């Protein structure tokens, strides 16, 4: 761009007599120094941004990051102790549910830390919404579960 090129032009208003002198073409850097400097800068820029891009890509596409906490599951006694005070045993007793028949509970599912992706688990467990007449939708469910997404209405 003109603004960054050094003045190779003759001073304006003093154009030399065409017959004698040939002025140096505007912008031309016969030494090639400018070209080399800019080329170096450009490649450095590409390398820098490229490394950054690779890092970003790795960050986005990298494997799962499991939580570190092996959060101990509180034992039944502690939870059960609460049930006495509320008088609502149903709500306060920890429930241990037997593996749901037919739902294909992932037997090979991850250890507690959940390091593996257990490819079969969600697929097997999530029923296809299509079959038979099993479209029981609890009343009022839509309103209940509909909390707003961050995108609703307000961008930020």
């Amino acid at each position, binding site marked *: *761009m003109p603004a960054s090129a050094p003045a190779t032009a003759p001073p*304006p208003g003093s154009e030399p007599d065409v017959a004698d002198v040939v002025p140096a073409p505007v*912008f031309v850097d016969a030494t090639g120094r400018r070209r080399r400097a800019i080329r170096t800068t450009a490649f450095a820029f590409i390398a820098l941004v490229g490394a950054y891009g690779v890092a970003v890509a790795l960050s986005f596409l990298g494997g799962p990051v499991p939580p570190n906490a092996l959060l101990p599951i509180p034992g039944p006694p502690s939870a059960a102790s*609460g049930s006495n005070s509320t008088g609502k045993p149903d709500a306060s007793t920890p*429930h241990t*549910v037997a593996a749901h028949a037919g739902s294909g509970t992932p037997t090979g599912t991850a250890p507690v830390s959940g390091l593996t992706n257990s490819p079969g688990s969600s697929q097997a467990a999530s029923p296809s919404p299509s079959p038979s007449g099993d479209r029981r939708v609890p009343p009022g469910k839509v309103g209940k579960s509909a909390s707003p997404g961050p995108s609703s209405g307000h961008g930020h």
Partner: protein
Amino acid sequence: MAGRRRAARAVPPRAHWLLVAFSLISLFGMLLIYGLVHHEVGGEGSSGPHIPVSSDQVPAAIAQGGPVIDTRGGAQRSYPALPGHIALSFDDGPDPQWTPQVLAVLAKYHVPATFFLVGGRVAQNPQLARAEVAAGNQVGIHTFTHDDLAMASEWRRSFEFSQTQSVIDAATGVSTALLRPPYSSEPDSLDNADWAALRDAGAHGYLVVLTNRDSEDWMRPGVARIVANVLPAQGTPGLLVMMHDAGGDRSQTVAALDRLIPLLKARGYTFTTVSGLIGAPSPQTPAVSSQQWRGRVLILAVQSSDFTVTALGWIILVAGVLSILRLLLLLGTARRHARRRRGPWGPPVWEPVSVIVPAYNEEAGIEATLISLLDNEHPMEIIVVDDGSTDGTSAIVRRFANDGVRLIRQPNAGKPAALNNGMANARGRIMVLLDGDTVFAPDAIHQLVQPFSDPGIGAVSGNAKVANRTGLLGRWQHIEYVVGFNLDRRFYDLAGCMPTVPGAIGAFRREALADVGGLSDSTLAEDTDLTMAIIRAGWRVVYAQDAIAWTEAPASLGQLWKQRYRWSYGTMQAMWKHRRSVFDGGGSGRLGRRGLPYLVLFQILLPLLAPLVDVFAVYGLIFGDVVKMTEVWLGFLAVQTAAGWYAFTLDRERHRVLWSLPLQQFVYRQLMYLVLIQSAVTAVIGTRLRWQRMDRQGVARALGGDRVGGLE
């Protein structure tokens, strides 16, 4: 073979295309990240919660159980809230406006809470997440993009968990095992799809936190309503309260919180975090360094994308507004110009002129050129300067010797030298300069010299038109000449800052040429250089729109590229050469302060932004609102077409060809900005350029020649 120009040495640079492609791809990547965080990219559940499906596979004990569900290691347990305890939880943050207010209320009453964070927002505001943890609150993940996990693919879920965990690791220094799925509610609202997602979350090591007390604050039902939603009717059952500190106006939430905490405390409630509510140890552990680094890169990526996309969005908006303003300015000045120039310039000028035709291998077109000149009534001498042609140019010119056409032959020295040579041998006080492939209208010379009745006018630009208007390329160039160049010239004329008298048709006063020492070959646009020099010498340069010449336009993309490369590079050279006119007074200052900024803005800077516009457009077409994009585009097109229509009317051209205007956006426009990039790079790095010359086909003769007889 003998090069036409001395400067024929190096080839044009190429490596910068790598840089350009790289930059545009990076920009597209940033747009993708921006879109992901701002919920434009990613489809799937990001548009909202799914329509509930059957819930027959959700174990009854889970549906009827407590709000914290553990499916880790294949377990299916839920945990109730300890009676007398309350855990406040806030979803969707952090938000720069509301999160600090929520934190302030919590600090005021010295109570902890649990924040379920959206990863993208953490990346935007990592300091808020840090403040939450520093104040003794717990954090959990709420996905990266607030995606509906039930509808997400397995890969997507893993992505949502991992990215959020990473940025929380980086922002807060702790890793968390808590997860709340977006759009979740109480356990009895779970359907089969939710349940599958929950079990997947467990497989990833997360404890799923739902709620047993939805404040429904997101509906903004009023402060009193939110308070009533949370307060239990009687007793002190354990409460896991769901509220929101982002996603809209949360002033009601903040106000309700300020009322609720004292009320609940008065009832004897103990405020705790989610893990405290179920009697579990902290779900937070110190973050692993490698994960923190991953999160830092993500934060940097999100923030740099936010900044870049926002800044470029504004720049493009400003550019669009400027483009519209320019068109309005051009239409306004063209209208004024057309009115002002309706009458004669003054007493008719019949002074004999010297017509100088530089010719290098012009055997295809020179005959038509000379015939059209001889058809002109104006008294003249015609001098053809053969610049060392290797074809039959001279032989053709010699046949016109009886008509008074003089031939001067010189060794190949370039067009500026040929013109200077011709002028040195000319007798007239007015020089008409044209290219050897241009055909003049019968009254072109007479029209062209009329402005010289004003002694202050040093040069006159004629109206160059495209002779070969066949094919899309010919039509596009025809439109560009009529709309772009000629509207611009009317503006320059009124503003007193004409930067270019085209080499195809222009007239010069001998004194003006002598003042500037003739033509210089220090730039590749000797016509622009000459015109600017003449203005700087104190002469006025005007536009005679009725002096019409037809010129042969490049017929292939390759030739067009070469021509425009020379034009734009040469124009940059001339502008740089005459840059000091910015500080001059009088006419030279008008050139420097009106003409040059106009050229820099509309011929260099805005066209250089065009590739960015294209990247944004491609992104918008794939991920954005196609209807809105199309509307904006059609709006621009409508303004352009209106301007084009008016320009065609002013120039008395047939409007029909304007149908190809929308298509100009697709090949022509890209070619124009790519050639500009090439020119700018060449200028910056200082490479020598060889003269880019097109091969003449003699089309002006075939088409323009017919029109000479048919028009006017």
